[in-house]
């Protein structure tokens, strides 16, 4: 099931096809394609309002070769709950995966209530949060998952500001606190790890939460060719720990193979460029290094 290099013809046969209007270098579209390769055609998907919904379903075109529905911004998990309930009562659930998707804002901010309800009620749904750390579809505004000191259009850096002054919300831990059967964090920079985790969800009944780090070219302000590299640096610096948890307990972590200073990760991205202007910025980078070091300690990443 794991992916090899695809020909153009193969790409047309994908369940999430080429031809959508995503940006070049869009890591979210890469992640969706990888996920759909594993889930297969017996999947019904929901999408919250956001980049994915907009760039994949410009009427009359659609990149989805599976049944797909978008309703609103905050209700992806509730729509998926309804689909799952309908499949259960009509005896069609067995062998069908319900995939619920949203961005970080649709998951951790406006959609958190519906998501918590879906977890708590125990629906057999795989929920995927594509985390690009801001409201990218509306033009890079801050979300609850925007990392510390990131520039966004509503948390701009300025004469007296280094950008977003709050740490990223611990969304996977919030999912784990629901004691759901499976929580995982993956990255578009590590496709094999991502697909392994998706594959695992197929064998688990009940709510599953998968958060995927998906770098965003225009929002993070970097050259499209760096999407995978930046995603990998997020992991290798300790800023984006990849792990799995079952029923609220961590069961595996992806070890850092070669630790890099956070500076390596930050300097490639325009959203952090204000940190490289003066001494005060340096002090901020040290704070971000501390966040990474604490992650490394907490998750045992080395």
């Amino acid at each position: 099931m794991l992916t090899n290099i695809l020909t153009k013809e193969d790409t047309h046969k994908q369940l999430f096809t080429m031809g959508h209007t995503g940006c070049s270098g869009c890591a979210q579209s890469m992640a969706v394609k990888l996920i759909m390769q594993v889930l297969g055609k017996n999947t019904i998907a929901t999408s919250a309002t956001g980049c994915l919904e907009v760039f994949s379903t410009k009427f009359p075109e659609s990149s989805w070769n599976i049944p797909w529905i978008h309703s609103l911004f905050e209700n992806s998990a509730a729509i998926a709950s309804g689909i799952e309930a309908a499949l259960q009562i009509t005896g069609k659930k067995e062998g069908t995966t319900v995939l619920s998707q949203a961005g970080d804002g649709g998951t951790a901010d406006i959609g958190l209530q519906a998501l918590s309800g879906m977890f708590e009620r125990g629906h057999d749904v795989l929920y995927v949060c594509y985390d690009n750390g801001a409201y990218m579809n509306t033009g890079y505004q801050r979300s609850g998952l925007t990392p510390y000191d990131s520039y966004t259009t509503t948390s701009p850096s300025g004469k007296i500001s280094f950008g977003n002054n709050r740490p990223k919300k611990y969304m996977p831990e919030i999912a784990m606190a629901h004691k759901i059967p499976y929580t995982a964090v993956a990255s578009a920079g590590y496709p094999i790890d991502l697909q392994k985790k998706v594959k695992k969800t197929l064998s688990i009944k009940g709510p599953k939460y998968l958060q995927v780090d998906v770098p965003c070219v225009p929002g993070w302000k970097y050259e499209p060719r760096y999407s995978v590299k930046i995603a990998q640096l997020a992991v290798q610096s300790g800023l984006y720990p990849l792990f799995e948890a079952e029923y609220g307990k961590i069961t595996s972590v992806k070890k850092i193979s070669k630790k890099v200073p956070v500076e390596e990760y930050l300097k490639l991205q325009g959203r952090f460029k204000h940190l490289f202007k003066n001494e005060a910025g340096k002090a901020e980078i040290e704070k971000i290094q501390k966040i990474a070091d604490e992650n490394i300690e907490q998750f045992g990443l080395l």
Partner: protein
Amino acid sequence: MKKVLEGSMAISDSIRMTEPKVISAYPITPQTHIVEHLSQMVADGDLKAEYVMVESEHSAASVVLGASACGVRTYTATAAQGLLYMEEVIYNIAGMRLPVVLTVANRAVSAPISIWNDMQDSMALRDSGTIQLVAENNQEAYDMHIQAYKIAENPNVMLPVMVCVDGFVLTHTFEVVETIDDIEKVREYLPPLNMKYTLDVNNPFSFGTVGEPSVYIETRFRLSNAINNCKSIIVDAANDYKEMFGKYEGALIDTYKMDDADTVIVAMGSVLGTIKDVVDGLRESGKKIGVLKIRSFRPFPADEIVDALKNIKNAIVIEKAVSLGKGGILSCEIRDALYQHRINSVNVNGYVMGLGGRDITPKNIYDLIIKAEKEEDVDGEFFGLNNELLNKVF
């Protein structure tokens, strides 16, 4: 079988007869009894449905949206703030042409918070593309829900239907209701839902895609046509129901003692019962007065209303909601309908009454008739206020 049923029991019992597959609701007074009864039916195995206990009305509406898109019959119920919280989803359900049926136990909207009855909540959804039917009593509430599915699921309609039932006045009041004993007859009246497009892994479609400026307005036009053109289907649903079950409470409108009337009271919902009592008394004393009941508020039966009112002198409209900054809602629409037919001989006066559960008594109605016949073009004047309270400094 004739039973003494609380309005909520009557509604839940008729929902049971329609055999929805997915029910989802969030508790809010005065809707709660309906969904409590339904949960009990599911718990007892009397209704084979998934009852999804959600964390909000927004999710209740979203769950039935998702389930409906899978092609199964769905049901939800709410009131007041719950309906306003659902509003975004209801617009979406209508736009996606999903035949969801929901009950609104009509209740006033905050602030101040009030759990008691008026129609401000459902009125707020009047432009959503949802069919709105209003029940007068518990019998009609029972019958109307079965008709609601028949209308919603018609392939030429495919729209949500909201059945409006006055909170407490009907939901918590016991009346004699004749229920249907034979579910097979309901199945015959209401065949299984058969949707053309569903979320089906064997036949994948994308739902809720982006509508660019090049397609959006045509989509809304088709939605508009669907609701405008469903009047005959509402009439058929009522007539077919009468034929099969012997009950008829009107279709789009209903008239009461309107032959030769020169004054007509126009209203919706449970207040019609009180009005009819007053009219009976006045008829005995020789007054030429009748009642026009609006049963379908959306689609608005403008032609039928004009036809019913064109030869009368005074139309007194009871408004149980108000368009703040404008005035009466129902009276405004009636005046508009008459204007469209270039009829200016009918004096339409609209009065806002009964907000937040204030009783509308027979005496109120009587006093209103005396007053209204002397007035012209009243646009949503508040009637029956306690002046002592108005002048009090808090």
